[in-house]
């Protein structure tokens, strides 16, 4: 029962916190994460959303309005971080849609979750790259993007998934 659980307030608070921690991590570890020419981009907010979709499928007791909150998180991301409205407000709900599609076929656990998260991060980064190329925010070649951005970003975010999967599951169970 989503309506009655603590998750109703806990989920948005966690989402917003993850969104801000993304920026804080990028700022504190900027020397290591944005060492030219490579860039590691932290996507903890995506991790929180994807974990939401995974645990929702896992328990199959209730449904959460994930896509709506994903759009809200995307809107804040666009306005506060990038200043270009209309990119992540669509990408984050697409990620939720994709994840729900995948968990319908694959029974989610830690390992299959890792694979799902791999695909999600690739989609987030690829769509973000295409959008920013379209409005001339960057002039990076596709191959450069794969090597310098997508590779390190995947490595960082999968490591974060491994580290944070069980803590986040504990938080979700506590909030339920």
């Amino acid at each position, binding site marked *: 029962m989503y309506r009655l659980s603590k998750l109703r307030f806990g989920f948005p608070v966690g989402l917003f916190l993850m969104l801000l921690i993304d920026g804080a991590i*990028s700022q504190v570890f900027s020397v290591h994460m944005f060492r030219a020419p490579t860039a590691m981009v932290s996507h903890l907010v995506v991790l929180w959303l994807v974990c939401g979709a995974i645990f929702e499928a896992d328990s199959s007791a209730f449904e959460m309005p994930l896509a709506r909150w994903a759009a809200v998180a995307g809107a804040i991301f666009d306005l*506060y*971080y990038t200043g270009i409205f209309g990119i992540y407000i669509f990408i984050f709900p697409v990620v939720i849609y994709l994840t729900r599609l995948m968990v319908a076929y694959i029974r989610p656990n830690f390992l299959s979750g890792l694979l799902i998260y791999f695909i999600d991060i690739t989609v987030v980064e690829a769509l973000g790259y295409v959008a920013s190329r379209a409005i001339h925010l960057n002039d990076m070649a596709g191959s450069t993007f794969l090597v310098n951005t997508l590779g390190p970003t995947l490595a960082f975010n999968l490591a974060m998934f491994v580290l944070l999967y069980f803590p986040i599951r504990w938080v979700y169970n506590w909030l339920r």
Partner: protein
Amino acid sequence: MQKFSFNRRLVIIIVCVIVSFALMTVSVTIRNKKSTPPLVQQFGNDIVGFVDRVVAIPTNGLSGSVSSLSELLNTYQENQQLKKQVSELAQTKVRDQTLAKENKQLKKEISLNSSLTDYSAVTASVITRTPSSWQNQVVINKGSSAGIVKNMPVMSGSGLIGRVAEVNKTNSKVELITDNNDTANRFAVQITTKSGSTVNGVLSGYKSTTGQITMNNITTKAKINKGDKVVTSGLGGVTPKGLYVGKVAKASGDDYGLSTKLYITPATDLSDLNIVTVAVTKQ
């Protein structure tokens, strides 16, 4: 029925893509043309910025203590070197003060109120950084209420690091010079060569593989040496004259071999920013 739902999904996807591109185009246009974002966006950014400050306090405190621990290790050597520099610096500072005073008097003589070199500094601290690989942006904790206007130059340590890209009431976004996007406002810079001639040009981009800024549109064929200092020229816009950018690392022909292209080593580490200074000019 199956066909119907597929069509509906396709329509939704196409509408979303169109709306997305429309929104992006509109916001890029607003970003380029208007001096401030729409009120709703400003208001939202101010609120998020306020909450973010609370989140940033523990993380920045943590990183501060870690970096102070690592800095402790080479403090002794640094201290020795700095002592030498300080004694030289005192002399320079006194001379600088005398010159500034003289300059002020001379300006008074010819009744010149403000020149291109005049600016006041507003110190701000960095709240957060955009988690994106192509948008090199930081959010600072001063906005239009502190007198910051769009396109003002921002410095950190000894050199120029970027310009103000978006101004809200209590925070603003700074686009670093490492950002390579098409719409970025370029700084007009100049070099005074060893022979005394002045070379004007424009900062044109950033080469991420070497970490160097490129400079184009160079006006003369004067000989430029490695190590010549590059400063802003104060031409065209709100940038004051004489902000230090970096040193010339290499001169080469540009992509078409028609003009000279310079590579500049930036004066500060552009990835490690905590406290920045915005140069506020009188308008």
